[in-house]
Structures are given as structure tokens and as C-alpha cells.
């Protein structure tokens, strides 16, 4: 899923500082699962914003709403009757949400309340980690199911760099060296030979480098 963090409060306050009435809209998709933009978070942010502005003596009216998904025109449509009743709309979905909203309602302003970070999952309660960089041509079968593109700081494809130490990456002791894991697993399974295969320079066109991407499923296109 897509993992995001809420933006610092000051940044959000700065965005809405000229507003008197806003809509705060969450999403029941990924951002609900990673506890950053679901119903609960919408309620919390709404009250923080109200209280802060009340203290300043310039009350801010914040209405709350949570859509099933903000990346789906069908649900985005649910704001049709109300979207123009606000000075701005603050979205707690990933970066896709406010863009779909502003495409549907070009005469309204939409602000992002979260920083969208990566594709990954929860490794323990409250901790999420990156697993995929969306390169468009998955090669993790060469690496026993571990992705060196997303999980090696240098995206190395043939083995660890000289900075790998005690299973940690040279970038930070908080980052595991995925190459340490890949090599260990290959050793355990007696398949270290796999790593002798020279991989051709990657075709990055399927990643962002070929320009913004699109996926077309012919059988579904009417």
C-alpha cells in the first residue's frame, strides 16, 4: 500500500491561513490503513486546526468528510453538491487524492495535508517500511523476493557495496542492508552462484524515466 506521513501542522496552517471555512476530506484506502488520513485522523486534525485558530481569534470552520477512495472518480463525485461551499479543501489522501479532486473540481483549491512517501507495509505496529519503488519491471525473483531497487540505497544489482557492515547500510544504522540479506539467503540455500549472472543495464523506461505512466487494460476500456 501507499504510505504517507501527516505534514507538519505549521505547514498545513500556512496553507489555510487565509481561509475561513474549509473541508477536510479523508480517504478510506491506504491512508486509513497506515493511520494517517482516515476518519480518526480527519477528526483529530480538524479539531487541532479549529482550536489553534480559535486561539488566534480568527475561528476556522472545518467540515469533515471521508471518501471511500479519492483516487476513484466515482467516489470523488460525492463532493459535487458541496465542494464549492468552502474557501479550500484539504485532502488527507495520498498525493493522488487532491489531484483527482482538483481535476474534478477545477474551480476549487485543493491542498495536501500529508506527505506521500513510498509503497510498503507495516513491519510492526506503527512502523512501515518501503518495499517497492514501482520500477515497472519487477526483477525480485532474481533476488529471492527482495528488491534491491527499492531497498538498496544505491539500487545495486550485483551485490553489496563496500559500505555494508553488520547487516546495516552505510547510509544509516537504521537502514538494513538488503544485500546482506540477499547474500545470506543465497548462501543458506547454496545458490550463491545466482549472483554471478551479469544483469544487463536496466531499462528505466518502465519506471518514471519514460515519462508519466499509464496502464491500459484493453478488455475494460469501453
Amino acid at each position, binding site marked *: 500500500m501507499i504510505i504517507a506521513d501527516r505534514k507538519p501542522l505549521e505547514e498545513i496552517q500556512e496553507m489555510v491561513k487565509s481561509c475561513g471555512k474549509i473541508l477536510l476530506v479523508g480517504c478510506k484506502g491506504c491512508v486509513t490503513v497506515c493511520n494517517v488520513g482516515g476518519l480518526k485522523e480527519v477528526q483529530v486534525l480538524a479539531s487541532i486546526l479549529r482550536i489553534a485558530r480559535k486561539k488566534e481569534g480568527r475561528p476556522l470552520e472545518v467540515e469533515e468528510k471521508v471518501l471511500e477512495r479519492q483516487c476513484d472518480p466515482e467516489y470523488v463525485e460525492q463532493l459535487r453538491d458541496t465542494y464549492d461551499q468552502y474557501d479550500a479543501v484539504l485532502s488527507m489522501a495520498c498525493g493522488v487524492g487532491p489531484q483527482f479532486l482538483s481535476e474534478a473540481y477545477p474551480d476549487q483549491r485543493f491542498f495536501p495535508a500529508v506527505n506521500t512517501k513510498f509503497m510498503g507495509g507495516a513491519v510492526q505496529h506503527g512502523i512501515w517500511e518501503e518495499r517497492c519503488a514501482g520500477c515497472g519491471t519487477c526483477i525480485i525473483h532474481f533476488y529471492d523476493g527482495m528488491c534491491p531497487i527499492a531497498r538498496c540505497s544505491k539500487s545495486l544489482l550485483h551485490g553489496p557495496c563496500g559500505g555494508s557492515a553488520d547487516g546495516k547500510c552505510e547510509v544509516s544504522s537504521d537502514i538494513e542492508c538488503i544485500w546482506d540479506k540477499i547474500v545470506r539467503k543465497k548462501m543458506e540455500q547454496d545458490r550463491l552462484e545466482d549472483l554471478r549472472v551479469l544483469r544487463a*543495464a*536496466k*531499462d*528505466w*523506461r518502465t*519506471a518514471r*524515466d*519514460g*515519462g508519466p505512466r499509464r496502464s491500459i487494460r484493453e478488455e475494460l476500456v469501453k
Partner: protein
Amino acid sequence: MHLKNRLDVGEFAVLVEMEPPKGIDISSMVFVAEKLRSKVAAVVVPDMTAAVMRMSPLGAAMILQSKGLETVMQVCCRDRNRLALQGDLLSAYAGGISNIMIVDGQDLAFGDHHQAKAVDDIDGEQLARAIKGLCQGRDMAGTELLGAPAFFFGAEFNPGLEGDELEQELERLDRYKDAGAGFFITTPVFDPAVLENLADRLDVRQLNLIPTVMMLKSVGMARYIQRNMPHFHLSDQLIRRLQKASDKTREAVQIAREALAVLREAGFKGAMLAPMGWERKLPEVLV
């Protein structure tokens, strides 16, 4: 005389564009360059035009400098991050290259290494500020340099746009000016009226605006440009002239020569000849 001084005193500056070789054989580049030495103010060395891999402009420009030619080194942000860009700029200055032209660079999809990863760490306007910073003795991280360069740098300008696109282009030009750009080399101009039309928006003669004269190598090329690059404003008349000529090559040389003369007459600070692979014809154009 350095390019900047030449522009300052208003002596018409003829620039020529010369692509570095795709390979290590520099003999042809050097051969042409030596013939041009007394005829041009500077050689503009592109940074992998159209994303086609070739010798880097840093190497090629240093070679040309060593042969006694002044160069303008193009820099685009597509292939290098801010460390590599700044590092190459320092190398360039230490190697005698003091003129830089910032270009956007075409997408990798246009070139011959489609699978490559684009860098685009910073954009041209940020690079302009970085160059200014280097000249003030600091790198982008704010660290003091051991000796600061004194670059004379410029950027591209497309005078042939219209409407909103032209407005955006003029704004971009202003931002580059604010960042310290000292000259602007245009996209190819086939009709000088395009420049005159800008006279109420820009002081086209004071600005160090250097129009590009592109060599029309064939009728086919001219037609292609007319069809696909409307902002170059290539007229039917020019195509007909080329069509009618019995010796098309000679006519193309003549057209370029006349275009240079027109710009010189009209009081522009200079012009850049883009030979489009006809580097060997340059000495003829510049007799």
C-alpha cells in the same frame, strides 16, 4: 577578445555550433575549428543534443580551447546531479572555459539510449543560481571554494512562440536575467521579423540576444521544419528558393550567409550558426 567584451563593445559576434564527435576521433572537429579560428568569436559546444550519446562538451570544449578557440559550453541537467554539474563547471573554468550556456536538453526518448534513467536533480533556473553562487565563491551547499570562477553565462530563448506560450517564455527570460544570465541564444530564426515583433517587449539589441541561423541542408529538411516546428517560422518562399536552386548545397550556404548579413545589418549583437552536421561547410559560410 573575450565574448563578453565583444558583446559589451558591440562588435558583431559570430558563434558557431559544433557537435563533439561520437567517438574519440577529434580530427574532423579540430580541422574545421582551426579553419574557423580567425572567423568566429566562439564555438558553442552542445551537451548531447537530442539525448544522443557523444563526447561530453567538457572534453570537446577543452580540446577546442587548447587549439586557441574560445568556447561556450552548453550544460543541461538531464544527465548529471548537482555534484557532477558543479564539479564539471569547476573543471571547465580551470580548463579555460568561461562561457556557459544553460539548455533544457531533450528527453531521453529522443535519443539513442532510451533505457537510461534521467537525472533532473535540479532544473536550469536552479543551475543558473548555482553558477552565480560558484562565481561568488560558494557551492550549492554553501561551502567556500578554493578559488571562484568568473563565468559569463546565458540561456536559450525561443522568440517564435505566440500568445500565452510567448508570455511564459518572456517570463522565463526575465527569471534567467534576474539570476545573472548575460546572453540569450535563440532557437533557429528563419524570419527576422519575428525578432522585430518582440521589439516592444524586449530591447532585442541591448539584451545580448543572439539569433540562431540554422543551415537548411535539403528541401526535405526545410519541409519537415515547416510542418513540425511552426515557431521557427520557415516560409514557403525560402523552401521555393531552395527547390529552384540547381546546386542546393551552394544555395543553402548562400542562404545562411545572407541571414548572417541581415542580422548584422539589423544591429544584433551577434548570431549563431547551427550547421546541423555540415560543420565542414562552415568556412564557406564565413568567407
